[in-house]
């Protein structure tokens, strides 16, 4: 039986490999290759861009713009994450269907919350941003909401799954003491799922920084905005300065988040 399973999985893998290669080959024919790949000034542009990478503009005013827009990007990401938490936490808890006992209510809770979360996260944050800017005007609030909605959708889904995956035995013990479903959730389920939830939230924060940087594309400030302006001026050295700011910001948040996650993981044992 074991051999059979192995053979099946090998067959599955072979089929999968074939499907992947064929799909990739077809997709390449779908890409408009045009007349030549590189445009007339392309090779020169690559040279200029690479040359500029090792000599970013380090004037004081450029650096101060960089520092300020780094904070703007960070602020968008952080405020967006608070909105995401405000959306993801309640919907995730409802979507896990763990706080109600009646099967019908539970099913209804799970499917409606999960559907809302799926819609939020299906649409990319930049598309949300554009829609919000069109609807609300060019306000920072549009950017914060645009980040918060899809991130809330992702957080909610993960929270729901983590809350469902908690081992049942300790919960049964709690229930046997006569605890209500809400108490079981509050004193059993949530504390057990919390470390993983925290880990994931921090991980998402890293992604939020990158997303916040490109929100500027719809006209909001931040690092992306300055990168865009530098490109419009064809000033590659200035562009690299801002890109280095972005990389540094991502790295710092990355490092912090991985330190936190490692400690949370130990906490959990």
């Amino acid at each position, binding site marked *: 039986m074991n051999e059979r399973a192995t053979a099946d999985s090998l067959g599955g893998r072979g089929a999968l490999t074939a499907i992947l290669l064929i799909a990739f080959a077809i997709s390449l024919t779908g890409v408009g290759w045009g007349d030549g790949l590189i445009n007339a000034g392309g090779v020169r542009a690559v040279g200029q861009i690479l040359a500029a990478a090792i000599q970013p503009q380090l004037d004081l005013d450029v650096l101060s713009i960089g520092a300020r827009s780094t904070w703007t990007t960070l602020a968008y990401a952080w405020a967006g994450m608070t909105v995401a938490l405000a959306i993801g936490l309640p919907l995730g808890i409802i979507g896990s269907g763990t706080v109600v006992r009646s099967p019908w209510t539970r099913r209804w809770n799970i499917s409606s919350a999960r559907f809302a979360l799926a819609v939020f996260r299906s649409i990319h944050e930049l598309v949300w941003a554009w829609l919000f800017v069109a609807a609300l005007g060019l*306000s920072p609030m549009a950017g914060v909401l645009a980040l918060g909605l899809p991130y809330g959708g992702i957080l909610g889904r993960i929270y729901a799954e983590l809350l469902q995956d908690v081992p049942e035995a300790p919960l049964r013990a709690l229930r046997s003491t006569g605890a209500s479903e809400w108490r079981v959730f509050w004193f059993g389920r949530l504390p057990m799922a919390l470390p993983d939830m925290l880990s994931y939230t921090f991980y998402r924060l890293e992604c939020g920084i990158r997303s916040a940087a490109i929100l500027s594309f719809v006209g909001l400030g931040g690092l992306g905005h300055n*990168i865009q302006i530098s490109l419009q001026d064809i000033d590659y050295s200035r562009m690299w300065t801002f890109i280095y700011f972005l990389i540094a910001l991502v790295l710092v948040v990355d490092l912090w988040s991985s330190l936190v996650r490692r400690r949370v993981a130990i906490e959990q044992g």
Partner: protein
Amino acid sequence: MAAQYGRGEPVARGGATAPIAPARRIGFLAASAVIAFVMALAAWATIIGDDNFPSRNVFSLDSVARAADFAGGMVGAESSASPAFYNPDEWAEKARLAGETLAMSVAAAGLAALGALALFMFGARNVMMGSLAPYRSPFWTAPFFLVRGLFTVSRAVPELVWAMILVFVFTQGTLPGVIALAIHNGGILGKLGSEIVEGLDTRPMRALRSTGAGRMQVLLYGVLPEALPKFITYLFYRWEVIIRTTIVVGFVAAGGLGTEFRLAMSHFKFTEVTLILFWYLVLVLFVDIVSGQLRRLGN
């Protein structure tokens, strides 16, 4: 446990970590919580205090009316022209663009996978300078830092920014967008691949070694087959992200639904926006389902 939660972004857990004293650990976590809270307050202060923040507008009847106008525009209530979604030609045209978007996402995922596959072994610490290293020399360890640096830069820069840069290089068409997606996701996949290798159980490799296999053979027949299935799983998760992002790359580079979305928005053809969003959601759903099925086929 949480290794595969989320769309292709596994939560990287500590892996092999040195023990940390409990008190210091809790101290660090508490300090982090305080920092996170203070940052949240400061962030909101910045957002609200922003000069052009029309706080009177966003939470006012005026902005409600504006949002209602926009929503009305999307369902075709605002304009005298016939809404795009009553026009079969528009449906067909957007479907074609959806197909193009799908092709772009597959090409980007494929290129990203090729790049990551070529490099991820060199980004694994244990292969380059740890227990699995076939050679011990600075010439073998140097690529580790090079490759990891490459992964870091390529994934720290968002796809959209790569696309903005690459339109200066490639000919007008879908290619800059595809390459931009491939660079960013190649960095992510490469890092994930390296971490897979770093997290592998080395006992089978040691067993292989004890049968007389050379160090290179261990890499080829021990490490690679163990790492590939997980890598493919990550690739599928990543594809689910890529399809959502392909439309965004289309904002700056040509091709697919993204470019059409930009045009429709700038020309205030909001009923077309509705149609594009519809196809976008269909694509996302389609890719989620196909990716789930293929992942199951692989396992």
